């Protein structure tokens, strides 16, 4: 397989230096990298899993709104970013792998290369501010 374009590589290099969970996907949402802080959310290291198909990792977090109602995928920031090549941010609840309901904020942005080519997206998880 050919190497990723440098805009993707540089996003990974940055993610490896951050203490917040960062997920990087290709254009259809396959998880191509996540950093060490993100391993807590996924429960496995990137070394163990390697790349994760979109249908596998998108069902892990069980996103919910404040009334514990499941949020449909099309309302999630990363899904919207992948669809529209536009950044999004949302605060919601997820069920972590430890079974705990956690309030989180998610920021996602598209990776648009120098030649205006859409290469994928980055999702950053934050602990919600009011926690």
């Amino acid at each position, binding site marked *: 397989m*050919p190497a*990723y*374009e440098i805009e993707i590589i*540089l996003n*990974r290099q940055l993610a*490896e*230096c951050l203490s917040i969970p960062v997920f990087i996907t290709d254009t259809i949402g396959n998880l191509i990298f996540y950093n060490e802080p993100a391993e807590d959310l996924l429960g496995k290291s990137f070394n163990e899993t390697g790349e994760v198909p979109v249908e596998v990792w998108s069902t892990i977090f069980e996103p919910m709104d404040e009334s514990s109602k499941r949020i449909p995928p099309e309302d999630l920031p990363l899904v919207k970013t992948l669809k529209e090549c536009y950044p999004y941010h949302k605060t919601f609840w997820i069920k972590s792998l430890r079974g705990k309901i956690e309030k989180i904020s998610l920021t996602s942005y598209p990776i648009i290369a*120098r*030649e205006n080519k859409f290469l994928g997206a980055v999702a950053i998880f934050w602990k919600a501010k009011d926690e």
Partner: protein
Amino acid sequence: MKINLWGVRGSIPTTGPDTSFYGGQTSCTLVSEGDTSIVLDAGSGIQRFNGIDITDLKRVDVLLTHLHMDHIQGLGFFKPFFVPGLEVHIWGPASTTHNLRSRLGRYLSPPLFPVLLRDLPCKLKLHEIGNSEFTIGNFKIKSEYVIHPGPTLGFRLQGQNSSFTYIPDHEPALGRNGMIPDAKWISGFNIASSADILYHDGQYSVEEYNSKKGWGHSSLDDVMLFAASAKVKRLLIAHHDPSHSDSQLGKMFAAIKRNNTYKFSFEMAKEGMELDLP
């Protein structure tokens, strides 16, 4: 394919008795096959082109990896620019902001240079490229963005029987843990893969690199690792640091030779070197 190294020094011309063996001129290499000749970068080494008889020349192509001064400073003194009607093609990296003409014009205009780009008598054609594939005469060329500050390309020139990859400024190990040991995640891998000759940045010792991360260059260890990952046949280590004398470069080379476990051949690029590929 014939390769002439005319400038292998990084950053600033550094000619003098202490650098006369490896050379002090900045980046410039001539690659020829049949009746096609391509100049790679226009550092001060491009002066050597001016010694060539260009009476019968119809066209000349210059491929610029990027527009840092040590890669364009020779342009103003490039003889073909001043030959009326001669086709001069400059190929350089596209930017998201200004076009190639306006970026080159920052240097080729007063007060830095007395002649404006638009006043050159040659027939100047500018080509903006990125992750591109194109043909010049006998060469099929691939360009690809690589990690270095500002838009910067590496080139792979494929001749009839052999390939030459040119990445004079490159920091594939940028990041907390250095180069990622997976080809998919290595900047420049696609154009370097299995090259007959790889010409690559190796500006720093490992110790120097530790205090210069993010400056856009490679340590000797990293260039060796990069070449091994890409499975090249031969490596030329270039973009020598201007502070490194011949004696220091000799010692640095001896050290990597001593510790070498790789199978490909490698050497320090030396100004004036001529290489032949079948």
